[in-house]
């Protein structure tokens, strides 16, 4: 906890209250109310004419356990999990290197990572289609170099979906990690070094536990959106490797079974909330112990 600076805040009391009120108002109107609406919709009776009607029923919730949707659910979870792991494996060393670099280079590299964000991710996803296609850049190189004699089928596969998701979401992994590495106290590493800890021991007992909040935050920010990015699955997976977001979108737009779509959304929100809660617990533990112990999380 940072030290309280009450004296500074006091004169701004009314301002502070204003800000809090605005924030609460904003969250209430744009987060709470829509979510309550979704929750209510999920227990209504589906009706293609009027989207959702009374009476209250749990049918839509029961349908979530239809083996068909359970399978889609696991497939989507798997795609998102693989994406998260790859993002972490790429993002962690990247953030580490970034944190070690002198200021100017750091700025340049961070900037370069963020630049693609100025282009809409939908357009970038279309560009990936051109790269992964049978006559795309990758296959032209592979065939041209004689590595394969026939183009490898990359596009419209789970691989393409994961590739797209990693590409779009990588910065979300890197940014929290960079801030974690920034907070890392160099003296601790030096102390460990002086006390005879080797490279692996320093990483395992000092660096990893202290950057764990960044790891957890990064994983959450990657994992959750990865389940919802329906356009990546539509474009790169050929609308075959569905994410939860695709199911929800199609239930609302095509089948017009709003209660089922809503139940799916609420389930997804539930998973997010559970993960956030785990994050909160982990954070508390870190604060209590000044770092994660050997068991980690």
């Amino acid at each position, binding site marked *: 906890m940072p030290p309280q600076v009450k004296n500074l805040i006091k004169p701004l009391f009314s301002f502070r209250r204003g800000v809090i009120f605005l924030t609460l108002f904003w969250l209430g109107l744009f987060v709470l109310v829509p979510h309550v609406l979704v929750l209510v919709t999920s227990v209504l009776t589906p009706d293609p004419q009027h989207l959702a009607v009374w009476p209250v029923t749990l049918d839509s919730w029961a349908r979530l356990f239809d083996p068909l949707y359970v399978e*889609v659910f696991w497939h989507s979870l798997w795609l998102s999990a693989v994406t998260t792991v790859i993002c972490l494996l790429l993002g962690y060393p990247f953030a580490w290197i970034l944190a070690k670099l002198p200021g100017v280079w750091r700025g340049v590299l961070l900037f370069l990572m963020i630049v693609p964000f100025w282009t809409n991710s939908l357009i970038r996803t279309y560009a990936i289609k051109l790269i992964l296609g049978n006559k795309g850049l990758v296959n032209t190189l592979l065939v041209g170099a004689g590595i394969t004699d026939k183009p490898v*089928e990359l596009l*419209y596969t789970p691989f393409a979906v994961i590739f797209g998701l990693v590409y779009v979401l990588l910065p979300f992994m890197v940014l929290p990690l960079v801030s974690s590495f920034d907070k890392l106290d160099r003296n601790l590493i030096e102390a460990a070094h002086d006390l005879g800890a080797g490279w692996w021991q320093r990483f395992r007992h000092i660096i990893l536990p202290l950057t764990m909040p960044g790891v957890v935050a990064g994983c959450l920010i990657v994992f959750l959106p990865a389940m919802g990015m329906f356009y990546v699955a539509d474009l790169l997976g050929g609308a075959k490797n569905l994410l939860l977001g695709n199911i929800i979108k199609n239930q*609302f*737009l095509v089948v*017009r079974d709003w209660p089922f779509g809503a139940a799916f959304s609420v389930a997804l929100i539930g998973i997010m909330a559970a993960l956030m809660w785990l994050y909160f617990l982990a954070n508390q533990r870190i604060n209590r112990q000044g770092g994660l112990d050997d068991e980690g999380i």
Partner: protein
Amino acid sequence: MKISSLIVTLFLTASTVLYAGEKVVVYNWAEYIPEGALEAFTKETGIEVEYSTFDNNETMYSKLKLQKGKGYDIVVPSTYLVSKMRDEGLLHEIDHSKLKNLSNLSISLMNKEYDPGNKYSIPYLWGSTGIAVNSKEIDPASITAWADLWDPKWEGKLLLVDDVREAFHMALKKNGFSTNSTNPDEIKTAYEDLQKLMPNVRVFNADAPREPYLAGDVNLGMIWSGEAKMAQDENPDIKYIFPKEGAGFWIDSFAIPSGAENLENAHKFIDYMMSAEVAKQTVEELGYSTPNGEARDLVNEETRHNPVIFPPAEVIDKGEFQKDVGDAMQLYNEYWEKLKAGK
């Protein structure tokens, strides 16, 4: 401070002046209007076009339903949706007296049972759904029927258009049923047949089915006639086949949603698109067939004799036009979702 606020005020005023003009909001299928037609319309009439696209009937219908017919001045539903939307009060009656080009349209595509007297819809384009083959990779003579797509050797190779009615068309026809079947048993049979087809599917596409063929990612599958013609313009190896069980035929029409705010402009837009010259450009560029008789006389020889665009009578006779299937549509949609979600 003063100067900056002055600039802001000026800017705001200027932008209101610029954008306060007449407009029409058009919601059309993706890749379904010739290049430059919107700009030409604005130039001729001074009406700005706000244009957005959809890639399946269901999405367009859902949005209109949700907005209670508001938000758009022109939509382009397929036949079966015209009657459905009309019955649900989502469409505005079209004032024929404002359409001086109406007489250009040929009688054979007017006054169909989905919209007697064309009170709610004006046919824009029609076409067929058939099979595309890249003749460089696959012998086109070996593919003659929808049933050929079920061959296990095409595992993970096919493109299907992401359209529920057209996917079911294949399976219904294959089993000898009507494409407009409302019989739950027939629809179920078709569904079960499509389940067997799913392992062969590489990609569902609805915004531009020609692209995966041109990119070499697929060599066999479904395609719309116009997309096939556009693909052939770029790569003549792509062949279009009318399956022997019968191709699917459909008509897409202009309609005005009940909540349209620019009625006058909507009529002007429809009228503009019906002019012989614009309709001719539409056919030549998009490769779909036009109901516009005047335009058919204007098109170049090549287009007129292209069987993809203007199929021979016996092909049309063997195929079947889509009609409204009423409440069975919900059943179709549910099965379709299950097919796409299944592995």
